[in-house]
C-alpha cells in the first residue's frame, strides 16, 4: 500500500522582475509504499527540499497532485501534518528550552495525551542516548546531539511516516554512524522513511529504493541493485599482474559478457603471473555520475558552498 503518491507535482517560483520563473520541481511522479526507506538523491538545487516542503505542507504545489498517508495534500494538509514527522536540514528546536522541554512541547503541539508525555520524552531521550542531557538547553548540546534531539522531536507523536532532510550533513563520523543506525532501526519498527542525502554510501546502505532528481525532474527510480545493473552496459574485469621482477600492474578490461571480458583479459597477461582477477560492479556513485554528470566530490563541494538552499 502506497503511503505517498505523487503525480505530475510541480513547483514554479517567480524569480522577480526580468528573470524567468524557476521550475524547481517539474512534473514528477513517484510512489512510496508503507515501511520503505525511500532515498531522494540529487545535486544541490535539484528540487529535493522543495519536494519535501510540498509534501509536508510548507509550500503550495504550482501544479500536480499528491497524497500523503492516503490523504489529499490539497484538501487535507492539517490531517496529514498530524501523521508525519519532519526533520529539516537545520536542527531547529528552541535554544532556550531543555532537551526534555523541547520534546514535551513537540508532544503538546501534536496532542499527545498529558499522561503519556513525560514517559515518552524519557523514552526518546534514552533511545537517542541523551538522558544525561535531559535538562541541558538545546543551545548547549553538541551538533550531533542537536541532530539526534531534532529527530527525537519529530518522532515524539509516533508518526508512521518521517521525512529526513540531509540528516547526517555536518556530523562527525561517530554521530553520523549512530544516526544511520537509528534510521535503520526506524524501518524495523515499521516507520516509512523519506530520506534526502548527499552521501551516496549512506543512501546505498539505508534505502530500499532511490529516486535521482536532476533540475527538478526524476531521471531514475529503482532499487539500488537495479540502478547499478542498468548503469552497467559492459562487464569490467580487473586483473592484478606481476612480471618476473615482481613489478605489479593493475589492468581493467571490458567485454560484452563475463566470458568475453575474461578471455580478453587473459590475452593481455603477456606471460605475467595473475595475482588477482575480479569482476567490477558499478557503485551507486557510478550510477549517479552517469545520470547527473556530476561526481560525488563535486556534489559535496557544491553542498558546502550552497548551504541550506530552500530550492535544493
Amino acid at each position, binding site marked *: 500500500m502506497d503511503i505517498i503518491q505523487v503525480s505530475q507535482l510541480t513547483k514554479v517560483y517567480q524569480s522577480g522582475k526580468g528573470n524567468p520563473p524557476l521550475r524547481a520541481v517539474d512534473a514528477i511522479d513517484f510512489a512510496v509504499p508503507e515501511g520503505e526507506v525511500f532515498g531522494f538523491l540529487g545535486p544541490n538545487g535539484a528540487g529535493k527540499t522543495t519536494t519535501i516542503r510540498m509534501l509536508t505542507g510548507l*509550500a503550495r504545489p504550482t501544479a500536480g497532485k499528491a497524497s500523503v498517508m492516503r490523504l489529499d495534500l490539497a484538501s487535507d494538509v492539517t*490531517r496529514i501534518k498530524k501523521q508525519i514527522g519532519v526533520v529539516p536540514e*537545520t536542527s*531547529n528546536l528552541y535554544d532556550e*528550552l531543555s532537551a526534555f522541554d523541547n520534546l514535551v512541547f513537540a508532544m503538546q*503541539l501534536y496532542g499527545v495525551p498529558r499522561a503519556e508525555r513525560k514517559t515518552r520524552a524519557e523514552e526518546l531521550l534514552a533511545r537517542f542516548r541523551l538522558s544525561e542531557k535531559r535538562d541541558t538547553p538545546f543551545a548547549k548540546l553538541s551538533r550531533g546531539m542537536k541532530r539526534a534531539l531534532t529527530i527525537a522531536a519529530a518522532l515524539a507523536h509516533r508518526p508512521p511516516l518521517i521525512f529526513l532532510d540531509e540528516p547526517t550533513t555536518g556530523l562527525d563520523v561517530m554521530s553520523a554512524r549512530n544516526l544511520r543506525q537509528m534510521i535503520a532501526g526506524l524501518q524495523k519498527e515499521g516507520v516509512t522513511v523519506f530520506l534526502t542525502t548527499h552521501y551516496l554510501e549512506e543512501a546505498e546502505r539505508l534505502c530500499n529504493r532511490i529516486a535521482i532528481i536532476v533540475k527538478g525532474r526524476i531521471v531514475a527510480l529503482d532499487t539500488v541493485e537495479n540502478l547499478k545493473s542498468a548503469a552497467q552496459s559492459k562487464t569490467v574485469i580487473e586483473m592484478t599482474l606481476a612480471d618476473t621482477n615482481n613489478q605489479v600492474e593493475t589492468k581493467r578490461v571490458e567485454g560484452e559478457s563475463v566470458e568475453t571480458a575474461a578471455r580478453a583479459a587473459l590475452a593481455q597477461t603477456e606471460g605475467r603471473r595473475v595475482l588477482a582477477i575480479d569482476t567490477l560492479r558499478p557503485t551507486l556513485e557510478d550510477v549517479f555520475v552517469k545520470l547527473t554528470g556530476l561526481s560525488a566530490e563535486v556534489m559535496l563541494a557544491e553542498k558546502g558552498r550552497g548551504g541550506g538552499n530552500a530550492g535544493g
Partner: protein
Amino acid sequence: MLADDLRGMFYVGLKDLRAYYLKPPNISWGILFPFAFVLAFAIRNPTDLRALVPGLIALTLLFGTSSMEAIVIAFEQRIGSLERLFLAPISLPALLAGKLFGGMVFGLTVTLVVLVIVLIVFGAASVNWLLLVLAILLSAAAFSALGAFVSVAVKEVFEAQTLANFIRFPMMFLGGVFVPVDSMPFALQVIARVLPLTYAVEALRAALVGGVQVDMALDLLALGLFTVVLFGLAVNRLARILD
C-alpha cells in the same frame, strides 16, 4: 480541528512565555520603563500626577505586550524554528493567536503590577472596574497584534526593533499620554485618531476617572477594530512567508 487550534494556540503562547518572556530582565524592564518615562515628564511638568495614570497604564501595556512580540516571529524565522510551528497540525490564525496570547499574558502581568501600585497610591474610589478590565484586555490585544504585525512585516530582528520603535515612539507623544489630544493642533489630532494608543489612553482615562459612555464604547470598538485589522494583516503576511 477547533480543539487542535485551541490547544496549539495555548501551547505556542506558553512556550513563548517560557522561552522568551518570563526572564527577570524583561519583567523588570517592562515595569520600570513606563515609570521612568512618566516620572521624567512629571519632574519637568509637575502638574496633577493622577492625570498621568491612564497614560502610564497604557504605556505599560504598549511596551509590555509589543516589545518582545515585535521580535519573536522575526527571530524564530531567522533561526528556522518558526518552520516547526508551520509543520504543526494547527491553522495559521491559531499559530498567530498563540503568539498574541504569549505577548498579552506578559503585558497583562507587568500591567497588573503597575496598576496595583498606582491604585494603592491614588486610590480606587472612582474606578469603573468592568470598563477597566475591558479597556486593559482590548488594549493588550491591539498592541499585541501591532507587535505581531511588525514582526511578520520584516525579515531580521534588528529591522523589527527599528520598525517597532519607529511606530511606538511617535505614538507615545501623539497618543494623549502626556498631552491631551484635544489640545493638539488639528493635523496632529488627525494623526492621533489613527493610533491605537489614543483610544487605549481615552478608554483607560474613562475607566479610572469617569467619562461619557458613548465615547467609551467608541474607544473600545476602535481597539477591537485595530486588533482585527492588524491580526488579519499579520496572518496574510505569514501565509506569504510560508509560500
